[in-house]
């Protein structure tokens, strides 16, 4: 049901078992913040290819550069060396419909939750040109439908500081989804949620993916989450990170929470655990 695929085999070749075009490609990309003696290497030379419509989960120790990879893909950070190609163009996130859920759910404090969530519709075409006309009707309904799905019905007209940490995180997810992006970048979107809310949202996200097949890059610390949602799991080494392992997860879809207690699933989890134990000690210079 599951096939492990070492990183070395994958490099340079198209994503095996997938004929879809490449949506995201990091080739030999590295990121160093700052210059000179104060330089901080955040990401070692990393290559990664994600085909269109893939669901990739990214796991790794704290501070290894997972968020940095998402920022590279979304164009918020430029690679210090190497190239990042998104949608066929070099860091051309601007041209794509990307939905990003930041690790820290930054809502604009002067807007109600509803308006915060509608923000992508205000910016991204084709919604942008309809925004003035529809923001009071269709778009607002759309935002509230999403809020309801994540269990925040009726909180649309609250302000961000009136929500709890977990509620904010859910609103943050809504904002990443509202403009039906072809590419989803999710940075620990369920970190502050209790197990059950989390599992509910897994299913919602999975349904959405099955229905629309966006390319998803999900950062998480929860291995069950990675295995439940991902079609591929990439494990990163400790800071400055690089990709240590890249495995495909072939459980049938739709997956259910019950499946996560099945032996296969538990075995995958154990396997990943083992990898991460390595990853925590492995610096980029260590394990190849």
């Amino acid at each position: 049901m599951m096939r492990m695929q070492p990183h070395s085999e994958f490099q340079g070749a198209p994503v095996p078992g997938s004929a879809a075009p490449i949506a995201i490609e990091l080739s030999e990309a590295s990121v160093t913040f700052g210059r000179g003696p104060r330089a901080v290497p955040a990401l070692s030379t990393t290559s990664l290819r994600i085909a269109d419509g893939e669901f990739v989960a990214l796991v790794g120790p704290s501070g290894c550069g997972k968020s940095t990879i998402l920022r590279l893909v979304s164009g918020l950070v430029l690679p210090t060396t190497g190239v990042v190609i998104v949608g066929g163009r070099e860091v051309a996130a601007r041209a794509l419909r990307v939905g990003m859920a930041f690790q820290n759910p930054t809502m604009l404090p002067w807007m109600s939750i509803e308006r915060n969530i509608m923000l992508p519709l205000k910016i991204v075409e084709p919604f942008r040109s309809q925004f003035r006309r529809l923001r009071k009707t269709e778009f607002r309904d759309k935002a509230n439908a999403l809020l309801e799905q994540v269990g925040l019905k009726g909180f649309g007209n609250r302000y961000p500081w009136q929500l709890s940490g977990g509620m904010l995180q859910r609103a943050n997810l809504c904002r990443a989804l509202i403009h039906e992006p072809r590419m989803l970048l999710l940075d620990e979107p369920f970190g502050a949620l209790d197990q059950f809310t989390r599992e509910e949202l897994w299913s919602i996200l999975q349904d959405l993916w099955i229905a629309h097949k966006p390319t998803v890059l999900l950062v998480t610390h929860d291995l069950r989450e990675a295995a439940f949602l991902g079609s591929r799991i990439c494990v990163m080494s400790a800071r400055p990170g690089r990709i240590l392992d890249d495995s495909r997860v072939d459980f049938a879809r739709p997956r259910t929470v019950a499946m996560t207690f099945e032996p296969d699933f538990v075995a995958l989890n154990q396997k990943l655990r083992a990898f991460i134990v390595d990853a925590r000690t492995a610096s980029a210079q260590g394990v190849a």
Partner: protein
Amino acid sequence: MPEFDYRQKARSAALIVLFFVAWELFCLISGMSDLVLPRPSQVFVTLVEKFPILWPHILQTLATTMIGFVLGVGLGVVLGAVIGVSKTAYDTAYPLLVGFSSIPKVAVVPIFVLWFGSGSVPAVLTALSICFFPIVVNIATGLATTEPELEDVLKALGASKFDILWNVGLPRTMPFFFASLKVAISYAFVGAVLSETVASNRGIGNVMMTASSNFNVPLVFAGLFVLAGLGVALYVIFSVIEGRVTGWATRKNDMVAT
């Protein structure tokens, strides 16, 4: 939004009244000549008596100030946005603007008079040129200090620089924009009046100049009170708008559960 607290407002009003009472008593006790500092009561009497005569001058000054102020705010916001966004603009414009602001505007009024004749136009221009700088500074600083995390939300969506400015930079800067309006409106009055004292046949500045050359000090102070009153009236209007627009920024006042 915090609710309107009548006790609070009453206390503040009482303190303001107290200020005038203290002034009155100070004048009475120190035997201050009303040729130097008239008592507030004298000023009020003069104000009431002369009000019909003052009225057209008040309107004149109010009109020129408001036009200058509105133009100044517009200019200030645009310049502030440019300076806040572009490093070159920051390095170029700031020294020039600080230099320009350090110049007493009274030296500039004659130039305006030459170009535009005496009257309303120089007053508008002086008000404008004196009031835009605080706005520039606060808008520029607000934009430069906007948390990058907030901007990233829009950047990740591929928003243009203008989108970011409009949706993040400016709203985030609103509290300081309103702060600068408080400074700008008072200086706009100063500018308009200044110009009127130099070159105009109407306006409160002219009244005050005439009054002062007649040593009619209570009338001079009546003019000052009118100016202060106009300034405060506009401040109150802005405060109301401010309360609506920037309530989010002062949320701590109503966050404590009650």
